[in-house]
């Protein structure tokens, strides 16, 4: 997917939810459905979702690989917990993560892996976000953190591969509203350092950059502070990892973002409609992230 230059029009939606109150874990999926619905109008073409801690899909002690497979792919030989959800298949097994990735990519050499980790399931597909939530059985998901992106394609084809989030490191996800203008330069530098890319997408460069910083031992906040210094362009980013949840906007901050916090949760959305279904939203602390400032929450 080429950079999507959406200007100031309300295109593409981001939502994310980080639960502080474990009592809400069983409701994570149901809450995400309402958030996704709130930003469906911003991106009716396709939607991607990432869920952390949904033991239906990724049982305790399992590694998980999310992969785009054709509907007729035979997953019987994988010897794993396999969940088919439209274009996405989540494969989980009580093995090492590298071993499971190797098993999946050996069985399906041309398939695109869209997420890996010990806690993470990533779903991608095309169609209306409401219909995709049903395909993913999002309402039935439990967990402690999730994020989603709805896409209104402006410059490239609507495909599952073009969906956010970009998950390029273990248990890491990035969703991006906007476009990076110097991504080609940063891509070359990362490629020189040995980083491999799946697509020509500018947002993938952001995800690979963050992953490379996290791999060097930085936390989300430090990685996004570094990103802010290096990347030029329009962006509101929501980045998640096994540790937490972070938001950053470019210094001009054309792309919208609103954060809501209560004692029970932290949520971020492109606009308030994405937050209206959250418990206690009436008394939540609501604010817009300031331009160029990194906001991070640890688990």
């Amino acid at each position, binding site marked *: 997917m080429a950079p999507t230059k959406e200007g100031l029009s309300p295109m593409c939606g981001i939502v994310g939810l980080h639960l502080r109150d474990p009592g809400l874990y069983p409701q994570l999926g149901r809450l995400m459905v309402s958030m996704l619905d709130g930003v469906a109008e911003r991106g009716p073409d396709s939607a991607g979702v990432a869920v952390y801690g949904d033991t239906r899909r990724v049982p305790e002690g399992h590694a998980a690989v999310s992969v785009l497979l054709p509907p007729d792919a035979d997953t019987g030989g994988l010897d794993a917990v396999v969940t088919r959800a439209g274009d996405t298949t989540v494969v989980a097994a009580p093995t090492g993560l590298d071993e499971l990735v190797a098993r999946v990519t050996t069985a399906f050499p041309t398939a695109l892996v869209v997420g890996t980790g010990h806690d993470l399931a990533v779903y991608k597909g095309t169609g209306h976000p409401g219909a995709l939530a049903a395909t993913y059985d999002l309402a039935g998901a439990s967990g402690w953190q999730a994020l989603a992106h709805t896409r209104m394609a402006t410059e490239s084809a609507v495909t599952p591969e073009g969906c956010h989030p970009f998950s390029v490191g273990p248990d890491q996800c990035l969703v991006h509203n906007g476009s990076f203008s110097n991504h080609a330069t940063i891509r070359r530098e990362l490629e020189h350092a040995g980083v491999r890319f799946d697509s020509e997408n500018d947002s993938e460069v952001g995800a690979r950059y963050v992953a490379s910083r996290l791999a060097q031992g930085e936390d989300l906040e430090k990685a996004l502070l570094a990103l802010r210094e290096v990347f030029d362009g329009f962006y509101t980013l929501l980045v998640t990892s096994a540790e937490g949840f972070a938001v950053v906007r470019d210094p001009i901050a054309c792309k919208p973002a609103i954060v809501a916090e209560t004692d029970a949760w932290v949520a971020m959305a492109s*606009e308030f409609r994405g937050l*209206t279904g959250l418990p206690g939203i009436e008394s939540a602390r609501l604010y817009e992230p*300031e331009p160029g400032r990194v906001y991070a929450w640890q688990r």
Partner: protein
Amino acid sequence: MAALGTETITVDLASGSVRALNAELHDPSAKLYEVRNPAGAHAVAAGIDRGITVDVRGHVGYYAAGMNDGGIVTIHGNAGTGVAENMMSGTVRVTGDVSQSAGATAHGGLLVIGGSASMRCGISMKGVDIVVGGSVGPMSAFMAQAGRMVVCGDAGDGLGDSIYEARLYVRGTVGALGADCVEKEVRDEHRSELAELLAAAGLEHDVAQFRRYGSARRLYHFHSEQAGAY
């Protein structure tokens, strides 16, 4: 035109559509409206063209009370991008915070924001009066052409960048001023209009605490000595 009813008409957006609400407000049967459960909907109470009163209970999305021409609209909550954008006349009040581009391109009327405004408040304002009880974000009053803006808190970087003839009053701190925006002397006529604006907004502050900012007029006048550059 038939006389408007004096009873308040209540519209619940949990069950009704914004389109139906706005159609009613454009051809009103009453003077007073109350809107419930806006839930962040866009374009709530946009396009009012007469002196009706609308109270919106809850947070609204983009372009609330946009193009207002004479209406008295109060949003009891927060507002998203572009509240009261291109207002012509009337009054729009927001009790909470507003997102970016509040009062963008507005030609007249009064916009009162009880909380704070984020970036680009009053961008390209063309005659509106904007009074903000809290602070405004970066690049506020960008290319402001006419009207007055009063900020009781602080203003972010780039205030008044490329400003024409609007007058800006800020009580707190101001980040880096925008191109061609300078601090100016506060004279009696300015203290007087500032007091009027604060009173209209229902805010009480000592006018002596405000500083005035406006255009240095270096940017939009063509200097003949620069002719050689063209």
